[in-house]
C-alpha cells in the first residue's frame, strides 16, 4: 500500500491572521482618523509609509481579498462594468472594488477600502499602468507614476537604476510632499528599513528549514507568512512573529518532525509565479497525496531576500538597489533570461526535483517564456517541469483536470528519471 501523506500544520503561522487583519483594518479606518491614504502598485508602498500614510498594495490587497473569500464577488462586480475575463484578475478585482465604493454595493466589509489621496502607480508590470489609468478615468484619482522596467540585459541595469532613482526624486517624493504637506521623511524610511532588516534576517533563518531534507515547512506556510516582509514592512509586530515561527521550526527539526507526515516528502518542487491565494487549500490537496511539497519560488523570494544589503543609513539607495542592484536586483530576475539564473540557484539550494510553472491566463508577467525556461533548466540541471494554467483568485479560470493531469505527468517523469 502507498504511503498516506498528511501535512503537519504549524502553530506559529496561525498568528499571522490577526496581524494581517489589523493592517487592513487600520487602513480601512485611516480616513476616519484623519490620516492620508495611498494605494500603490509595484515595489513602491514604502514611500507613502515613510510619510505616515496608510497604504494599500495592489498584489497584497489581491492576496488578502482572495484569502478572506471576497475575490469572487469583486470579480463578478467588475463584469458588470464591462471588464472582460481575459483582463488581469488583479485589475478586475480592483475595478470591482471601485464599483463597490462608487455605487455603495454591499460586499464583504473587510474588503472595502477608502479611496486614496494619492495613487503611486508603479509600472513594474506594464499592466499596472492600465489599472492606474482606469482608476483615473473612473474616479479621477491623483496619480504619481513610476516606470519600473524589468532588466532584460545586464548591461542596461545601471542606466535603468539611475532612471528609477531620478523618477522617485523627481515625481514620487514631490507628490507625496504635496499631498501630505510636509517634507519627505527619510528618517522614517530608515526606521522602516531597520525593522525590515531584522524581520527579513529572521525570515531567512526560517528559509533554512525549507532546505532541510526532509523539509520542515512548506512554501504555502511561508506564503501565508509573508506580510511582515511586504506590506507590513516597518511594523515591529513582524519580528516576534518570525521569532516564534523560527523557534517552532527549530523544535520541529530537532524532534525530526517533517512538513509532510509520516516521513517527509517524496518530491521537492519549485513553484514559479504568483501564489494561488484563493485556492491554497485546493492546491495543497493536489500535491500532498503524492508526497510533493513546494519549497521555493521566484515571487515569494522577491521580498528583500538579502537583508544583509539593507542599509538604513542609505534608505533610498537600499530601496532602489532591492530592485535594481547589481547581481541581486529583483528586476534582473523578472525578465525570462535572468529568471533562469535565479531559479537555477533555488534548484540547487533547495534540492529541487521538479518545476511547476504556475501560469495565470490573465497575468503574463510571470509566464513569459515559461516553456523555454523549463527547457533551459532541464538541460542544465536535469530537472523536469510542467506549466499549469489557472488563476490566483478567479475560480472560473481554474480547471482541475488539466492541473491534475500535468502534475501527474510531472511526478511520473521524476519517477522515471529516478529509475534510470
Amino acid at each position, binding site marked *: 500500500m502507498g504511503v498516506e501523506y498528511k501535512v503537519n500544520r504549524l502553530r506559529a503561522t496561525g498568528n499571522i491572521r490577526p496581524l494581517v487583519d489589523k493592517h487592513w483594518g487600520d487602513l480601512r479606518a485611516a480616513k476616519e482618523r484623519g490620516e492620508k491614504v495611498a494605494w500603490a502598485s509595484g515595489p513602491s508602498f514604502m514611500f507613502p509609509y515613510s510619510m505616515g500614510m496608510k497604504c494599500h498594495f495592489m498584489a497584497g490587497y489581491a492576496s488578502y481579498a482572495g484569502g478572506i473569500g471576497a475575490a469572487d464577488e469583486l470579480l463578478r462586480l467588475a463584469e458588470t462594468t464591462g471588464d472582460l475575463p*481575459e483582463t488581469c484578475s488583479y485589475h478586475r478585482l480592483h475595478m470591482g472594488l471601485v464599483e463597490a465604493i462608487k455605487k455603495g454595493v454591499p460586499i464583504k466589509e473587510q474588503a472595502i477600502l477608502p479611496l486614496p489621496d494619492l495613487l503611486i502607480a508603479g509600472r513594474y508590470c506594464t499592466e499596472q499602468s492600465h489599472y492606474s*489609468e482606469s482608476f483615473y478615468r473612473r474616479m479621477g484619482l491623483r496619480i504619481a*507614476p513610476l516606470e519600473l522596467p524589468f532588466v532584460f540585459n545586464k548591461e542596461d541595469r545601471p542606466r535603468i537604476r539611475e532612471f528609477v532613482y531620478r523618477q522617485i526624486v523627481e515625481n514620487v517624493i514631490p507628490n507625496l510632499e504635496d499631498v501630505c504637506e510636509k517634507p519627505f521623511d527619510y528618517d522614517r524610511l530608515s526606521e522602516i528599513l531597520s525593522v525590515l532588516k531584522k524581520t527579513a534576517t529572521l525570515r531567512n533563518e526560517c528559509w533554512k528549514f525549507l532546505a532541510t531534507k526532509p523539509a520542515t515547512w512548506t512554501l504555502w506556510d511561508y506564503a501565508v507568512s509573508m506580510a511582515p516582509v511586504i506590506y507590513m514592512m516597518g511594523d515591529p509586530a513582524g519580528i516576534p512573529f518570525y521569532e516564534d515561527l523560527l523557534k517552532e521550526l527549530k523544535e520541529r527539526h530537532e524532534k525530526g518532525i517533517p512538513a509532510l507526515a509520516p516521513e517527509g516528502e517524496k518530491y521537492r518542487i519549485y513553484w514559479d509565479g504568483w501564489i494561488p491565494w484563493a485556492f491554497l487549500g485546493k492546491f495543497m490537496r493536489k500535491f500532498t497525496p503524492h508526497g510533493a511539497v513546494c519549497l521555493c519560488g521566484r515571487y515569494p523570494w522577491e521580498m528583500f531576500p538579502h537583508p544583509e544589503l539593507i542599509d538604513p543609513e542609505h534608505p533610498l539607495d537600499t530601496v532602489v538597489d532591492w530592485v535594481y542592484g547589481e547581481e541581486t536586483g529583483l528586476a534582473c530576475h523578472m*525578465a525570462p533570461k535572468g529568471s533562469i539564473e535565479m531559479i537555477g540557484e533555488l534548484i540547487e539550494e533547495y534540492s529541487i526535483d521538479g518545476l511547476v510553472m504556475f501560469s495565470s491566463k490573465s497575468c503574463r*508577467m510571470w509566464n513569459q517564456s515559461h516553456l523555454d525556461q523549463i527547457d533551459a533548466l532541464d538541460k542544465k540541471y536535469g530537472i523536469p517541469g510542467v506549466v499549469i494554467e489557472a488563476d490566483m483568485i478567479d475560480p472560473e479560470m481554474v480547471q482541475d483536470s488539466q492541473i491534475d493531469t500535468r502534475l501527474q505527468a510531472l511526478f511520473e517523469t521524476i519517477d522515471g528519471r529516478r529509475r534510470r
Partner: protein
Amino acid sequence: MEKALSKIVEVTSDPYAYVAGLKDRTQKKIIGCFPMYVPEEIVHAAGLIPVVIWRGNESVTWGHAHVPAYDCGITRSFVDDAVRGKLSFMDGMVFHVRQCLQVGEFPLIMERNVKPAYQKILYLPPIYKGDSIKSFLLGDLESFKGSLEDFTGKKISDDNLKESIEIYNENRSLLERVYEIRREKPEILRAREVMQIVWSSMLMLKEDHNELLRELINGMEKKSVEPKKDRIKVIPVGCLCQTLQFDILDIIEDLGMIIPDDDLYVGSRYFANKVNPNGDPIEALADRYLVKTPLCPTKGVWDIDWGVEVIKQMKENDAKGIISIRVKYCPPHTCYYPDFKSKMVEEGVPEVMIEMEHEIISLEGVKTRLQSFVETIGGV
C-alpha cells in the same frame, strides 16, 4: 494606379517572399522591428533595411511549444514563424519590451531558438511627466544607435539620420495624402487595399514605397468615382500591432458601410506625426515618440481620453459610428475598452466591438454583430 496597387497586393500577399527577395536584390541586411514603436529611421540610417514584423495567416503550430494559446495573435504567429525558420532572412530583431508583457516573451525565445545575428531590447518609457523620462528615452535611442554601429562596424552620422528622417517623413506625407483623397472620395479604394498600402510601407524599402505612392496618388487624384450616398461612414479603431483579417473589412463594406478614415495601427496610426527634420535627430525621434496622440493604450497616457479623440475623428469625417477592433488577448486594448465603451455610451455614439482572433474559425458571428450594428445606425 492599378499598376501601383497590384505591386502593393503582390508585396502583402507574400511578405516572406518579398522581404527575402528584397534582401537578395539589395544585398542589405534585414532587421525585423516588432511593432509598434521601434524608430525605424535609426535602422535605415545604419544602412540596413527595417521591416515591421507581421502576423502571418497560418495557424500556430510549433509556436505553441514556446508561447501559450492565450497570447495575442501576432505574438504567437511571429514566434511560430520564427521557430519554423520562416523568418531566416531576418538578420536582426528589435523588441520594445515595455510596450506590453507579451513582447517580453521574445528575447529569450529568439536567443535560444532562432539566434538572430543582432538582437536589441528597447525600453521606451511611458509618457509620464518629468525630465527623467525624456533623458532615459534619449539614452535608450542612443544605445540602439550604438548597438547598430557595433553590428555594422560603421558610424551613423547625424547626416545619415537626417537623410533617413527625410525619407520617412516623405512616406508619412504621401500616406497622409492617400488618406486625404480617401476622405474626399471614400469609394476610391477598398478598405483592404488601404490596409495593404500601409502594410506595404512597413515591408518595403521606404524609398521604393515613396515612388510607388507617388504613382498611386497621381492615379487617385485623376480618378473620379461615383459617390454612393447611401453608404454609412464608420471609423474602425484599434487592432494594435497587426493587420486585421481582410475579410472583416470586406464584410463591413458589403454590409453598406464605408470607411473614410481609421484609427488602426496598420492604418493612420503608423504614419501619424512627423519627425522634426531640424536639430538633433535622436532628440527629434524621441520627441515624435513622446507625442500623446493618436492615443495609444501602451504609452501610459491618462490625461487624454481615447474615446474623446475617436469621437472627434468620427465627427470630422461625418461618420455615424465606431467599430472597435480588439485583438483577442491584447491587454492594453482590453483594459482600456470598458472605459472607451462607457464614453461612447455617455456621448450617445454607436459603437460595436469585434474581437479579432488569429485563427478565425467562422466569420458568421462577426457578420451578425456588424449586421445588427449597421441596422442600428440606419443602414439596411
